[in-house]
């Protein structure tokens, strides 16, 4: 839940009868025994939004105290609420996190210009949240005008984070760097940016010193290195610096010398020759970085470079090598120096042997992500990772609880063993890259694998399934996955029954995203009330029809039932369905290809 949407009248009765006979409450003061100020002070210490949601449901006084004291709001679906409703309820917000498009838009399943515009939000914030300090956007459409408005409207603005957004250019960034005098964080990640030039970096004023986080790894244009150098030397509090690919090793060295206190470093391209002098200089610079706990970047790394990092690895907790096609021996040699590693992202170029090294060297590992090194279906077949690698990690890393694993083969037995070894999984995302592929040893469906996962991992919150799966998988999920919040399904299931089982079970389900499964209207409509307790449902390439969707829309007026209509669609099938609860009513900014039913 993003924040609670009370559907029942506020309870005005006192929940806690006042034990003190000396209480001088007047009879009109029915609720809390605490003065409002005290309550607000206490509640202001609450950070968890789940706790805050609970608090707001206790009674009207607590609801009010909570809303006045809340400074950060998280909106998981920008269309679930309107900026007007938000600002009315929470007057003192300093920090907003907004998420827009459905997650499958990352994989090109949502057409461009679908929506999720930050514009209407910024207009309202500009008048209501004058003291806004932080804005974090994910999968939103942001324009350069929006960024300019942002830069000019909020004198205290400190932190901007844009992840998987689109619609803006580096000109927009220049507005931010020019005008935001108090900026501490500029974090630009994986966006679809119109990258015109690196001039935005030079727009930081010469007396600007407050930057703590700078991540421009996403951008390809060269920035003025001297300007960057001056910036880094001025900003003594700089903790996170992630540069783009164009940074040379020489430049990296100079930056490291200026900022040895960095906590997180993202390197540029490392595919350069190193003279022995450069080698030892860099090694020494890394040696001086005593606070480094995250390393990323590593575009085009060579073996020769890696040993330079070894001194810096001793305190590393997060290593992101997911852009570096390392071999197993290279990874192995590196990991020997990273005993404290908790999070590791790699490419499957490291193969099973590389993962064995993970198991042997990283006992504290909690999160592992293995991405495919290249198009796995091109003519050049690369080895990648198999169930053996995952098994090896599970034997060595008992604290593992988050895995994202792209592989070409898997077996039920391996997964069962893996979860025996690591029963504390909270996030289990397995992608067997060939759709509908069975257990390659037994040729059976992968039902028992995911059955083992949900039965054993009682803390499981997020699950992505793959391989050949029948309805049995979903029976297991519905029956056992009591803490599951997010489920991603593709090319799976045999009938409506599969989806029905999930909807009937999984009491904590919030996000369900389905593609290319044989689930139709019967499944969609089997537990339609459930959708109001969820953030959203996505179904594409399934068997739902427009009529089924219309029925759902009819039955559940507080849901937005949207169908994305593709050209060539015959008007009968609902090829892409997006259902989400909302207190803001139907979208007012829907493009013509989005039908709200």
């Amino acid at each position, binding site marked *: 839940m993003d924040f609670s949407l009370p559907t029942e009248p506020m309870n005005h009765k006192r929940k806690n009868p006042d034990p003190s006979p000396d209480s001088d409450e007047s009879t009109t003061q029915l609720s809390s025994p605490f003065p409002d100020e005290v309550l607000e002070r206490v509640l202001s210490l609450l950070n968890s939004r789940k706790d805050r949601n609970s608090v707001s449901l206790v009674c009207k006084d607590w609801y009010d105290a909570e809303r006045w004291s809340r400074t950060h709001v998280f909106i998981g679906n920008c269309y679930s609420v309107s900026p007007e409703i938000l600002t009315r309820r929470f007057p003192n917000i300093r920090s907003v996190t907004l998420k827009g498009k459905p997650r499958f838009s990352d994989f090109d399943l949502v057409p461009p210009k679908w929506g999720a515009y930050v514009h209407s939000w910024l207009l309202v914030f500009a008048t209501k949240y004058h003291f806004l300090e932080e804005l974090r956007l994910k999968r939103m459409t942001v324009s350069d005008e929006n960024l300019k408005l942002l830069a000019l409207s909020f004198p205290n603005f400190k932190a901007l984070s844009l992840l998987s957004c689109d619609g803006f250019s580096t000109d927009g960034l220049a507005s931010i760097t020019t005008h935001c005098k108090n900026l501490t964080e500029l974090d630009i990640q994986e966006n679809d940016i119109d990258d015109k030039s690196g001039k935005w970096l030079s727009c930081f004023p010469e007396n600007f010193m407050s930057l703590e986080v700078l991540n421009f790894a996403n951008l390809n244009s060269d920035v003025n290195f001297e300007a960057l150098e001056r910036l880094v030397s001025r900003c003594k509090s700089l903790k996170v610096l992630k540069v783009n690919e164009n940074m040379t090793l020489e430049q990296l060295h100079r930056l490291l010398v200026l900022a040895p206190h960095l906590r997180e470093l993202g390197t540029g391209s490392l595919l350069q020759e190193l003279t022995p002098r450069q080698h030892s200089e860099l090694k020494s610079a890394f040696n001086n970085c005593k606070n480094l706990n995250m390393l990323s970047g590593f575009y085009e790394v060579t073996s020769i470079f890696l040993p330079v990092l070894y001194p810096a690895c001793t305190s590393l907790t997060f290593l992101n090598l997911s852009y570096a*096609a390392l071999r197993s021996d290279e990874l192995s040699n590196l990991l020997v120096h990273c005993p404290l590693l908790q999070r590791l992202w790699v490419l499957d170029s490291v193969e099973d042997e590389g993962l064995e090294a993970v198991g042997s060297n990283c006992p504290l590992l909690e999160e592992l992500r293995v991405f495919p090194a290249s198009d796995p279906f091109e003519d050049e077949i690369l080895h990648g990772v198999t169930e053996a690698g995952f098994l090896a990690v599970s034997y060595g890393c008992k604290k593992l609880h988050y895995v994202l694993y792209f592989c070409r083969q898997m077996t039920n037995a391996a997964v069962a063993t893996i979860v025996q070894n690591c029963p504390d999984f909270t996030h289990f995302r397995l992608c067997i890259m060939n759709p509908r592929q069975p257990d390659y040893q037994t040729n059976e469906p992968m039902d028992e694998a995911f059955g083992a996962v949900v039965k054993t991992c009682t803390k499981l919150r997020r699950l992505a399934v793959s391989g050949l799966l029948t309805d049995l998988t979903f029976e297991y999920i519905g029956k056992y996955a009591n803490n599951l919040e997010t489920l991603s399904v593709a090319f799976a299931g045999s009938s409506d029954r599969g989806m029905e089982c999930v909807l009937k079970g999984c009491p904590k389900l919030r996000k369900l995203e389905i593609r290319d499964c044989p689930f*139709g209207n*019967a499944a969609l409509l089997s537990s*339609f009330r459930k959708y109001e307790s969820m953030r959203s449902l996505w179904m594409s390439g399934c068997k739902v029809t427009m009529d089924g969707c219309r029925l759902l829309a009819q039955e559940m007026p507080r849901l937005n039932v949207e169908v994305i209509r593709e050209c060539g669609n015959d008007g009968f099938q609902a090829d892409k369905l997006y259902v989400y609860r909302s207190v803001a009513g139907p979208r007012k900014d829907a493009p013509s290809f989005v039908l709200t039913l």
Partner: protein
Amino acid sequence: MDATLGLLGGGGGGSVGGSSGASTNESTVSKVEQDFVAMSSEASSYPPEAELELGLGLSLGSGGAMKANKGCAWGERGRILTAKDFPSVVSHASRFSDRANPVASVGAVSGTKRAADSVSQEGTGSPPGASQVVGWPPIRAYRMNSLVNQAKSQRAEEEKEIDETDKSNDPSKKKIYTKTDTAAKEKGQLGFVKVNMDGVPIGRKVDLNAHSCYDSLAQMLEDMFFRSTTTVNSRGGEKEQVTQPSKLLDSSSEFVLTYEDKEGDWMLVGDVPWGMFLTSVKRLRIMRTSEANGLGTRFQERNERQRSKPI
């Protein structure tokens, strides 16, 4: 797929008991049911396809795989989509989209985030009937683009590096994770060729330049494919078996080693002098002897013609 009929608990055969709490009037029910009658024929086509895929998943080398199949068998599966794939989606019978709507309609409006290489996929040997699935595997466009760009320049750098740097890096384990365009599909100056083995879905690559004779090559391949459960240590670490004369070159084995030459013909490895072999080989295949026999005549003819030196 009876579950799709009798959707709303109303009439019709094969209803799913208590499947929903929807309360609608009869006319809607019957209308929707009619819809499902139309749909059920689609639905029932589902299971046979699943079986078909199962069969293919198992033994990729079986059946008509002998057609000089440029695309690897994996090419028939879903692939990471790039913009250039969109046009061909229309023409291919997409196995993963068994709806009335062709996947093309999806492709037509899909976003343009994926890198659109100008090189067309058409000539790269994707076998006819290759299904190309939008947005699968689920990797963010940004990551895919980065990998593609990185791989191309990495290969360029690598080739430069080979000239400059020393031989301390074991050549047989050089980074080979590159995405190449059509022109570079053949082995580059590094001497890597693809090796596939019948019945094994995942192929490997070997650097032919690391070998000076057939025996050494065959030994390496045997290590790769026949001892796949043990870690192959190319530094000559613990090998479980003493080096023996290669089975692959011995016609009594269950498998034979073949290669595709520049003219697209499949030949038995070992027929020509090593040097000549190096210049003409495009890729290798470890084939079941039974299959090789099936085309034995052609092989034998060529063997007779070309056998000039014994191995």
